[in-house]
């Protein structure tokens, strides 16, 4: 039987290393053939924001290509692609009201709009759920 795991995230991108840790956990879970659900709440709806852009970094003395600035939307897209290759489900739901208040509607392909009810549905259909709140 395929294991399904749900993750609820709350941190906005770039401000917390917790998010990178969770994305690594998801990466490992896909390696193990798990189906993945993600409920992005509050600032986390900006994680798959399509307009995230890399930049050069004069302090580092690197141009835009050398800097290769990491973007959460690229990591998420990569996880979605990996899930396809592994033939496991990957469902990313952005909290719709959180999207509206932040103007974060331009998400990458594969992200869908939802509500807390989706989180409950995800949790009840999963073997386990990990929530990572903002601290």
């Amino acid at each position, binding site marked *: 039987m395929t294991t399904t795991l749900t993750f609820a995230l709350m941190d906005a991108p770039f401000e917390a290393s917790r998010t990178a840790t969770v994305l690594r956990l998801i990466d490992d879970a896909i390696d193990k053939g798990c189906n993945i659900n993600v409920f992005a*709440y*509050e600032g986390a709806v900006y994680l798959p924001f399509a307009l995230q852009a890399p930049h050069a970094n004069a302090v580092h003395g690197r141009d835009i290509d050398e800097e290769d600035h990491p973007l959460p939307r690229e990591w998420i897209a990569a996880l979605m692609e990996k899930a396809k290759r592994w033939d496991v489900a990957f469902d990313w739901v952005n909290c719709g009201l959180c999207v509206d208040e932040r103007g974060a509607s331009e998400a990458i392909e594969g992200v869908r709009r939802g*509500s*807390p009810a989706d989180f*409950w549905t995800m949790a009840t259909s999963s073997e386990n759920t990990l929530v990572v709140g*903002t601290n």
Partner: protein
Amino acid sequence: MKALNIISLGYRATLEEQDDTIVWLTHAMRGAGADIDILLRGSAVNYVVKGQAVSPLAIGGREQKHAPDVYGQIETLSEKGARIYVLAEDLKQRGLKQAPRLDATRIVSDDDLPELLGGYDAVWHW
């Protein structure tokens, strides 16, 4: 499935959101049929203390008309059937042991937590 939301950071984001984000989430999920209770610890134990209020606020002439009412949020959540647990040690640490509080509050101690948490299928510490 029965879940417990643990809230430890009191008044997180309440100014802009006009409520506690996880109490709001619990309201919304219960509205969708979820069976979820609340455990307040840390600074969030103050949510059940009676008599709290937020004064009107204006920034640069932009008035905040609907101030957060976390006590009211918790009260209505309990009226909807959610159990509201509060950690005794954290009340005591903040001098709130004798403070007037929401009647529906269920006080638990650290020692009670293993049995309490064991009664839930999911425990989510936000």
